[in-house]
């Protein structure tokens, strides 16, 4: 397994929507490297024929009756929003300016 470069860390930060500063990028590049090298040992035992386990509960497709119930109180929910307009969440611009 390979080591992780500063550019890669910057790319990861972008994917994760973290506006990391230059100092943070250096810091995390070295720390992630150390952690990844420590955890990479698992490949010593993971043969191809071992099934992957995503979850401890062997259940699939848990259904319930489709019953109409009250939704959350709108005033309660909107009172916690950073910005509200006309009973809706107000968000920053989502399109680039032409």
């Amino acid at each position: 397994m390979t080591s992780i470069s500063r550019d890669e860390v910057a790319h990861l930060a972008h994917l994760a929507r973290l506006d990391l500063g230059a100092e943070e990028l250096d810091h995390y590049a070295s720390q992630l490297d150390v952690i990844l090298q420590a955890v990479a040992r698992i490949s010593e035992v993971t043969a191809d024929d071992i099934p992957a386990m995503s979850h401890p509960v062997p259940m699939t497709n848990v259904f319930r009756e489709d019953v109409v119930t009250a939704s959350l109180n709108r005033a309660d929910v909107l009172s916690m929003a950073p910005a509200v307009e006309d009973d809706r969440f107000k968000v920053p611009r989502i399109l680039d300016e032409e």
Partner: protein
Amino acid sequence: MTEDLTRQSAAVLAAAIAAKEVSAQEVATAHLERIAAVDGVVHAFLHISSDSAMAQAKRVDEKIAAGTEVGPLAGVPLALKDVLAMHGEPTTAGSRILQGWKPPYDSTVVARLRAADIVILGKTNMDEFAMGSSTEHSAYGPTHNPWDLTRIPGGSGGGSAAALAAFEAPLAIGTDTGGSIRQPASVTGTVGVKPTYGAVSRYGQIALASSLDQPGPCARSVLDTALLHAAIAGHDPMDSTSINAAVPDVVAAARRADIRGMRIGVVKELSGDGYQAGVSQRYHEALSILEDLGATITEVSCPHFEYALGAYYLILPSEASSNLARFDGMRYGLRTGDDGANSVEQVMSLTREQGFGPEVKRRIMLGTYALSSGYYEAYYGQAQKVRTLITSDFNAAFANVDVLVSPTAPTTAFKLGEKLDDPLAMYLNDVATIPVNLAGICAMSLPVGLAPEDQLPVGLQIMAPAMADERLYLAGGALEAALVDRWGHLLIEEVPSL
């Protein structure tokens, strides 16, 4: 009752309240006064819910006065980990990104606590989003261990454990993703149980790693822990991973506390090197007590446990990076940089940069890496295979023994600041607790004495198969009773006064 109400067990308080020897409001007041007196130095709480606590206590007193039937813990105060949503009360998960957020709904755990007539005193401190083993990753400052205020109370649920050890509450709720109930219990001389995965609903628990997270009960004795376990466990249609089966009778098991003929396995890989001398000493003493009580002790091998830490620190960050994507500053919580010029994407990045602390960012980055195209199979995929191997190790062991035991943590409480700058050293605290979460089985930590070299509590971990949670209480109850016989009291009685 003339004695100090804050020194009583939950079982004793509940009986006294039901018998009208003391009111729920007097009990709540005594605990709120205790919090006011000592939480300045302990910092177990992030938020005290005095008004709602007193209102709930009043309702309980009215019910009892009217002769209405109440739950077995009616009127008993509880400290709630700040990762569980409580309608109208601040819920931050120890993060700045949720500062000031008041959930518009109750988590199932909170709904059940209310239905059980339990009095919630407030929200307890924790490592941010439950990432840590010391509470030092809380955005609101660390919690101090009541045994020694210069030391960590464990984590992530250090606030809940410290509240118990400081006699601020007789009951607490924690959540355990890799040891966050058990390791704090171990280092504070208290009891904590991580129930079987799916036994207690995760609905309304702010998710860290959804396939590992599990809420559970914390208290100062095995019986109190069992009473709380029974109050919160059981099927919930709001959690699709909730197990639809009868809850084992943990209270009866705690009361019976008989382990004659029980087969106990010592996990070889969790009993060797790497433990503090006093931890090993108290652990081995506890094993011989268990043997004296009529259990048979054999050594079992779980050869893949040495890979558990590596698998965990790939699976957890992967799931966490996905779960924490919801904190984007759009519908609730912090929003930063919304100046009219920045795009939504820039606002999200600025918000998350400001709102998350260093450990959260570290794990989000790690998870984003492990899940990214080209690395997914090499990291996340391989870690899932290790999970299968560890589960097979447990299954093989439980074919021959009823429960497994190990020390809960490698050391007693370490000093605040000691491991803060070394993420790997911090992660190693969880080496004995993590396999349980990977397999989804249940485990308890209970105190077995003070390490001679530092006079700090040592915890023993008992592990049982999925949906056999009652075995934890049988074994834990028996061991606790034998230790109380020996000491004349619970270990927690030896905590220095604050």
